[in-house]
Structures are given as structure tokens and as C-alpha cells.
């Protein structure tokens, strides 16, 4: 057995969930505090539950004004979402439009000028994207502080790891089947990657109204019980892809799915575990 690296952990509430940061070895003494700060800055920029850059932007969009984005975090987040349009088959969409008639495509986003506008009243809610994106920024902060081995989680649906497992080799995660506590949907091996899990159904709960997800352009929410799991270098990308997989119709899901790092499971009680093998 090799010498154990120094460990440390930090737990706090942010992004509407419990964030846990576990570090193993190397790096500055205040690395975890720096990572916490990075997450809080994302929370402060993207939250819609208190005054933030995002609520200011939503105010402008609601009244059809052109918003100038002065917050670098918000601007960066919007650029990442814009860049991921093709990869998510345009199925990840953080816009909220009460009438379900317009979406991201209706926005005029000028990244050079840092402005955004829309002819129709619209608003943005970054939801799960924010958690993945915050983990990305925290990973960066930890790496800059010299941490080479860490596990970060925002709730249990967004995970990121830095480096290999503290005892060597990959970090391995098992995703349980919410229908049967003892069964596993899939096991995944991660190194320097992020994991996002999206679902329309939770353990022991047949309450689809709690998890209705909107498919862009579709008038009704997705209520079929399913879970999508995505592993990616970027937590933000993993979140966008897992959301896209959840709302995708079968044809689109087939295109998004790769069987190893991007997958979707049908969780109706009698269904065979995987839709796509």
C-alpha cells in the first residue's frame, strides 16, 4: 500500500443543492476555499432566486430590450451554451417562454458585443447546466491551486473528478436502478471527467409531475420515466447532453447516444433496462 495523500473535504449549500468537495493530496492549503469561491461566483451570476446578472438580463429580455452582458461568467456560460448547440442537436435550451413558441434560436446573441436580445419576451434559467458549469470552474480553481486528485459533487446528479482515484486507477461509479434498490443501471470509470445524471423519475417515487421536462418546441412535458447519463471532459457539456438525451425523441436519442459515455435508460416498470444497448 502506498502512502496516503493528505485529504480534506468541504461541504456547503450552493446552486440549490449540497456541494461536496473532496481533495486528496498536493496543492495549496486554501485550494478548497478557492474552489468554493469559484462555485459561489457561478451561483451569484446564474441564480434566478435573488438579484443577479441573470435576473437583470431576464428583466431586459422580458421587456424586449437589448441586454448588455457585463458579467464575464454569464457571458462565458452563454458562449458555451451557444457553442454546444450542434452537439446537443439543439435539444438543450435554457430559455423559458411561457407560451412555448420561441426558444434559443429566437435570441440574437452577439458574443463580441456581449449583447443579447429577443423580439419576444423570454427568460433564461440555467438549471442543471449551472451545476456542471460551476463544477468545471471549481475543477479549474483546484488545478490552479495545484490539486491533482479530487472528487466534486453538486447534489448526487453532477460529479467531477480530477486525476485518478487516490489509490490509483480510475474512479468507478455505479448508478443504481431507481426501480430496484439493489440493481445497477451501469458502472462507469472516470479519470479527469465529469458525470451528469438527468432523470424524470426518482427512487421510490412515482411522481412524474415533480420532474416534468420540456422538450424545446414541444408543447407538452416529457413524462416517460427515464434516466440519461453522460460522461464528458466538461461538466457543463455533460449536463447539456444529459438534458438533451432526456427530452430527445427516439430518433434524436439514437443520434446522441453512444453506448459508452452517453446513454439513456427507459425506466417504465416492465421495460428492459436499456433503450439503446
Amino acid at each position, binding site marked *: 500500500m502506498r502512502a496516503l495523500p493528505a485529504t480534506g473535504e468541504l461541504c456547503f449549500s450552493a446552486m440549490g443543492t449540497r456541494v*461536496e468537495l473532496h481533495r*486528496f493530496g498536493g496543492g495549496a492549503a486554501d485550494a478548497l476555499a478557492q474552489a468554493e469561491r469559484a462555485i459561489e461566483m457561478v451561483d451569484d451570476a446564474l441564480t434566478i432566486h435573488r438579484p443577479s446578472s441573470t435576473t437583470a438580463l431576464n428583466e431586459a429580455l422580458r421587456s424586449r430590450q437589448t441586454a448588455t452582458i457585463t458579467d464575464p461568467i454569464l457571458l462565458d456560460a452563454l458562449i458555451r451554451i451557444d457553442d454546444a448547440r450542434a452537439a446537443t442537436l439543439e435539444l438543450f435550451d435554457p430559455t423559458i417562454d411561457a407560451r412555448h413558441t420561441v426558444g434559443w434560436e429566437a435570441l440574437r446573441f452577439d458574443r463580441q458585443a456581449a449583447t443579447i436580445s429577443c423580439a419576444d419576451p423570454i427568460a433564461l434559467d440555467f438549471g442543471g447546466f449551472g451545476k456542471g458549469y460551476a463544477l468545471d470552474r471549481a475543477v479549474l480553481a483546484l488545478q490552479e491551486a495545484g490539486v491533482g486528485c479530487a472528487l466534486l459533487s453538486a*447534489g*448526487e*446528479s453532477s460529479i467531477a473528478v480530477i486525476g485518478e482515484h487516490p489509490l490509483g486507477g480510475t474512479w468507478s*461509479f455505479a448508478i443504481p436502478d431507481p426501480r430496484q434498490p439493489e440493481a445497477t443501471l451501469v458502472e462507469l470509470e472516470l479519470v479527469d471527467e465529469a458525470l451528469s445524471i438527468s432523470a424524470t423519475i426518482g427512487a421510490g417515487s412515482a411522481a412524474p409531475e415533480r420532474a416534468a421536462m420540456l422538450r424545446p418546441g414541444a408543447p407538452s412535458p416529457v413524462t416517460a420515466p427515464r434516466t440519461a447519463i453522460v460522461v464528458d471532459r466538461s461538466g457543463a457539456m455533460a449536463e447539456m447532453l444529459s438534458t438533451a438525451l432526456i427530452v430527445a425523441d427516439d430518433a434524436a436519442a439514437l443520434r446522441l447516444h453512444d453506448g459508452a459515455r452517453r446513454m439513456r435508460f427507459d425506466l417504465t416498470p416492465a421495460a428492459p433496462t436499456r433503450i439503446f444497448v
Partner: protein
Amino acid sequence: MTDKFFDLTRRTFLDRVLMASAGGVMATATPWVAMAAGAETAGAGKVRLGVIGTGDRGRALIQNIAKTRNCMVAALCDTYAPNLAKARQWVAAGTPEFSDHRAMLDTRGLDAVVIATPLHRHAQHTFDAMDAGLHVWCEKAMARTIADCGAMVERARTRGKVLQIGHQRMFHPTYLNALRRVKAGEIGPVTQIRASWHRNNAWRRPVPADSDDRRINWRLYRESSAGLMTELATHQLQVGNWFLDAVPTRVIGSGSICFWKDGREVYDHVALIYEYAGGRKVIYTSLLNNARYGCEEQVQGSKGTIEPELGRIYQEVPHRALALQRMQADVKRGHKRTIPIGGATWFPELPVTTPGESLGWGEYDETMLQFEGFGEAVRKGKALPGLLQQAYYASVASLLGEQAMDKGEAMTWPTSLVTV
């Protein structure tokens, strides 16, 4: 209790009050505390109080006044002789007694009066005392009508007298500490306060042969009381306004005589929603046939909840991932295994039953402190800042709630209130 021990507990209590209310934000939110806690000892002589109304509350007040260093009871007044007799044991032998408050006011020798009579008498007793040149300490609620509450404020202003209303929570270390933690952002922005005062009894007193129901059970008659609203809710509406740092914009409510159909005129069930700017709310219920939830204000923010009556603060922290804790332990003993990760699951939305954390502090002498503060105010001829406004708005809120229930209509906050 020895004098020395009393001094010690008194000092600890005051220190706690001062500690809770220290600092810029708290000094602005509780401007009355520093002056009350800094009250000087009697020196030239104690402030002489004449107590009008020596019923249950009046006698409790008399005992608290006896604990102060700067006030004394110099006269007693009650229209009901048996209550005067019960009060006698707490005051110096030979303290003059009156059955008519005007006679007491005429005798001179008083600096101020303490009013602990039924609600519908408060305004008249206040006017008479102030017209006789005396300062007034009056029990909550202020008066039976919103107009009379305003008239009391006005009379104090025109006569240049101190008017202080008995809202003891503003002197309570647990409440002060709760407010301090709210202001420090510990429970996030407060968006809702759910307050209740639930009891399981008739709220009716036995009527002695020498009196009558309207006098003894004045709380149950509309002429003399707005029932649960003025007698109980007013305390909690004061807390609501105080913690939300605002007055309501509107109130809707429903009241009924639902369980105690014994001829009473006031509701035994009230349920109201007070709306505040920014979509915030105080949700209030009071009833008289179920005591499970008792008396409490649940101050709710996105990061936590404070329950001052229980003296507890609860953090709104999601459960720790057990799997991650186990992973830490595994790594420490050099053991590697797959980490089961819950995924996007949710727990059934049951109430959180964690015990929370104590807000601290067990010795309370808030009613005594109210009087030390009043004594100081009388000496200086200057009211404790901020108090009367809190009391006025709490009384208006309770009476406006009564109107909303009676009319079955939303009532907007009156624009015609006097300035405090």
C-alpha cells in the same frame, strides 16, 4: 434569590440582550434596545407608576416592575375590588388604591401610568393619563379601532409624552438573536413567515358571582376585543413586520366560530395571509381546539428556518451523500471500491426532523427590561426610538385582519395612518 445573585443574572441577561443587538445593522433594526439596557439606576428616585387594571396581566406587570431598578408602583387602580386585593401583596404597604382611574390621576404624585385594562378601555385611559400630564405604558394591542390607535399616537405627540406599548418580544434575547442571524443572511432572504397560536381550551374564564361575563370574558365580545387578532396575533404580526422590515401591503382572511359555539362573538378560528412587498407573506392561523402546533413563528428563507419560540435555527442543507463519506473512509484505510451514486433522485418531501441548532440563552427578563427602558424614557422625556411604530403597525395589522375576515374581502394597508 439573593440580591447579589439577582444582580448577576440581571447583568448576564442585559449582556446577552446587548450582544444580540450590537452592530450597525442590528442597531438600526432594534434602536430601542441600547437605551433600555443602558437605563441608569434610580439615582434621584424611581419613576412612580400608577397601574390601571390589576387583572392577570396587570399583576404580572407589577411583579416585573418590582424587579426593575428605576421604577416603582406608587398607586393601584381597578374597578373590581377582588383584583385590587390580589395585587396588594406585590407593592409597598399603604400604596394608595383607587376604583376610578380619574381619582388616581387627580391625586398627583405619579410620573406615568401602566394600563392593563381590557382592550376597549386602552384609548380612553391613555387620553386621560396624558391629559393629566402623565406618560403612558399600555399593554398591547393598542386600541379597539385603527382610528383610536392613531389617536393615541397623536395624543402622545401633542402632549409631548412617552407612549410605550407592551410588545415584550422586542426585548427578548432569543428574538434579538434570531433577528441578528436573519440580518447576517444565515437563512437567506426571508420570503415567508408562518405563524400560529393554537390552543386547546375555551379561552373562557369562570365568572365570579359578583361580576358578569362581559367584564370577565371581555376577550370574547366584539365590543371589547377583536378576539384572537388583538389578544394573540398582534404579538406575532409585530414579529412578522419586524423580521420582514416592512408593513403588509394587503391582507386576506377567513374567520369563523367553528368549535366553541357557546355564545361568544369573536372567532375561535382565524386564518389570514398578509402580503408584503416583493411577494413575501406572513401566513397566520390561530384556533382554540388543537394545541399540536402551539405558538410559533417559522421564519423561512431559502437557506434555513428560524423558530424563535423553540429557540432553534435549521439549515436548509440537503443530505450529505453517504456514498461520498464512505469513499473518504475507504481511501483512508486504503480500500478502493465502486462508489454508488444516487443519481437524480429525490427524497420524499417529508418535514425535516433534524433537531436544528439552538439559538441560545435561557434566562428571560424581557418584561422587566421593557420597564427599565420605559423608566429611562420617562426620565429623559423621550420615547425609546422605534418601539411605538412597531406597536402601532402591529395593532393596525391585527385590526385590518379582523376587517378582512368580517368583510370577506382583501383589505389594503390604510393610507390614512398617522406618522409616528
